[in-house]
């Protein structure tokens, strides 16, 4: 029993009296709304009391930081030993442009790097492909060959700085380039650390950056997890991501449930396909969540996520190593919560979302820039975003104590509710035969589409408010300076790529691509072949074309 009978009785009697009072006052002064709910439309009560968390079991549901169920954090010391990593997601134009931005960020106190690639790179096309026209450098940096990659990381000590790369279908290729670049710097591959996003399930569900069908996509992911476990033990070969699920319009519960169910799918595949024991690789799985605008819902989601993953690893997969039970995650504030109208308000939104992520115990954080709803972020906007994290860390005092909201009637109740609702989704997906089956049925896609549509309707009838958009709108235009990516970047990048193609040893390229293909046919691990191919200056697309040839291509079913 979490509370004594006496306390519950006292609480009950006082709450009854309060309820009577509320009825009287509300009759005279009605509430502003008939129903109060989170941004995910989860109904919230006027008051939470001991009654709402009376069934908690302290040891199994709450506990202490660094111990099962890890609700309060993975680290016994919290943020006192070390803050979360200030990791600003960044990439634009050419490799040199991005390298300059990265050096600037590191000088300003960024403590980890995070690469944004342009669309052709994300989709496995070279800049000279007809499919790539008009996209070069627009949403991130263009990488075609190892030479571009070497320019990207010029002057960055890869054995010291950790780098996260948001790359999915071609994750094997970019990771191979990173490993090749580290080798050239003389770094030991066993010492380098970083993350590849490499989470294809959420691509089919939400982000839509896909190349091959789900089944072979998972095979490539299991290859990276196996390769990492054996040779790059400090690397996170996957970042199982809810961020994009949320940006596509899901609720917090859906983000939590689908992300964790994706994680289960990956673990099952590695065990089955590679014959590894769960403790051989589980400690290197990492996660990535959104921090949306609904403050408490986000904090509770992150707390619930840690507890759920610990329970899954312990009970479902029988993991023994405590580190296998840790859900380590990066967080990014919600791009979809920002508004093009009155863009300076975005600084405030991002600060509140970042605060929620810190109170939720994130290990790593990206804060969006105020202008990201309009264009790629300017240096000035990025600096404000980074400073937002530094102010939270160094000035507000919220990092002084671990999980400061624990024990709150509301916070613990909401944490439990999110977890319970997420379990329901997980068992439904289990019932369908797993996440790949659920995706084939269009289930998560449809659930998210419903939620996104519901929210849009709520905005239309002002049941939900976006300041400056459907309330407090002004005609005044707040101009922010826009960053533009010159179309000249594309011409230059194509020129550079042709230069590499003319210079390289074509026989070596051909040989390594043929090796890669036969490795795929034999279902061998592709990583060693990928590394050799990039070292021989095979292009990103040449390697991805081998994947497309052997595995086929996935097309968007266009569910709405």
């Amino acid at each position, binding site marked *: 029993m979490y509370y004594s009978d006496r306390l519950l009785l006292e609480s009950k009697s006082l709450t009854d009296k309060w309820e009577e009072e509320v009825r009287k006052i509300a009759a005279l002064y009605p509430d502003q709304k008939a129903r109060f709910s989170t941004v995910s439309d989860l109904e919230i009560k006027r008051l939470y009391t001991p009654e709402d968390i009376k069934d908690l079991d302290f040891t199994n549901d709450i506990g202490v930081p660094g111990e099962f169920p890890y609700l309060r954090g993975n680290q016994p010391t919290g943020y006192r030993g070390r803050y979360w990593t200030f990791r600003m997601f960044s990439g634009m134009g050419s490799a040199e442009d991005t390298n300059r931005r990265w050096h600037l960020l590191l000088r300003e106190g960024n403590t980890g790097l995070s690469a944004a690639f342009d669309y052709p790179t994300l989709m496995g096309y070279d800049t000279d492909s007809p499919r790539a026209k008009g996209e070069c450098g627009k949403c991130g940096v263009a990488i075609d060959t190892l030479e571009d990659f070497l320019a990207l990381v010029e002057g960055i000590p890869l054995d010291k700085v950790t780098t996260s790369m948001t790359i999915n279908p071609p994750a094997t290729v970019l990771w191979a380039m990173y490993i090749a670049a580290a080798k050239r710097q003389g770094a030991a591959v066993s010492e380098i650390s970083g993350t590849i996003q490499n989470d294809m399930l959420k691509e089919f569900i939400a982000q839509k950056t896909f190349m091959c069908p789900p089944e072979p996509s998972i095979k490539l992911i299991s290859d990276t997890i196996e390769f990492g476990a054996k040779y790059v033990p400090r690397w996170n070969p996957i970042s199982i991501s809810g961020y994009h699920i949320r940006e596509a319009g899901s609720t917090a519960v859906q983000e939590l449930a689908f992300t964790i169910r994706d994680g289960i799918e990956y673990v099952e595949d590695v065990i089955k396909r590679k014959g590894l024991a769960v403790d051989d690789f589980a400690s290197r799985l990492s996660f990535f969540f959104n921090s949306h605008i609904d403050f408490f819902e986000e904090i509770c989601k992150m707390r619930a996520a840690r507890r759920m993953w610990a329970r899954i690893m312990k009970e479902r997969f029988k993991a023994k190593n405590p580190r296998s039970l840790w859900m380590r995650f990066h967080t990014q504030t919600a791009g979809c919560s920002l*508004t093009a109208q009155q863009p300076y308000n975005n600084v405030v939104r991002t600060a509140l979302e970042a605060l929620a992520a810190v109170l939720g115990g994130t290990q790593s954080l990206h804060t969006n820039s105020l202008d990201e709803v309009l264009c790629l972020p300017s240096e000035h906007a990025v600096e404000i975003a980074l400073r937002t994290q530094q102010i939270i860390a160094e000035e507000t005092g919220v990092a002084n104590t671990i999980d400061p909201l624990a024990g709150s009637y509301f916070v613990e109740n909401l944490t439990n509710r999110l977890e319970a609702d997420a379990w329901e989704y997980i068992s439904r997906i289990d019932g369908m035969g797993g996440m790949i089956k659920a995706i084939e049925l269009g289930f998560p896609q449809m659930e998210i589409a419903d939620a996104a549509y519901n929210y849009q309707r709520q905005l239309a009838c002002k049941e939900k408010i976006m300041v400056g958009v459907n309330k407090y709108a002004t005609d005044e235009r707040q101009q922010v300076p826009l960053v533009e990516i010159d179309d000249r970047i594309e011409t230059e990048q194509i020129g550079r790529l042709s230069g590499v193609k003319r210079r390289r040893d074509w026989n070596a390229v051909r040989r390594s691509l043929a090796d890669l293909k036969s490795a795929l046919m034999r279902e061998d691990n592709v990583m060693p072949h990928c590394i050799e191919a990039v070292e021989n200056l095979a292009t990103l697309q040449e390697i991805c074309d081998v994947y497309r040839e052997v595995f086929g291509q996935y097309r968007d079913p266009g569910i709405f």
Partner: protein
Amino acid sequence: MEKKRKIRIMIAKPGLDGHDRGARILARFFRDAGYEVIYTGCHQTPEQIAQAAIQEDVDLVGLSCLSGAHRLLFPQVVSQLKAHGAEDITVIGGGIIPEQDFPLLAEAGIKAIFTPGASLESILQWVLDNVGG
């Protein structure tokens, strides 16, 4: 009396951009508003979009792009439609599109641009006024 043919709308995603939340919401919104709606899914080339628009005999194509490639891709859809003799199909666009690109797109034949924060009602109103309902 001849039964009035329902207006057909195609929502399309040109290029490599996968941000389809807005496109899918619009598709559903127009369907709910009584239109016939076709949604192409992501990653279509301008050529594919034009061909699908002709094949589906649509009255309006709504393009969505959030990657910054609209300057190239939106005009290409219009010129592909023209090349197939289907310049009567109205083309509008939406996404993250800076105001300074509006003249270029208008000149290329994009009849309206809707940017973040545009209400569903305002888009519907434009369609009612310019294409019909």
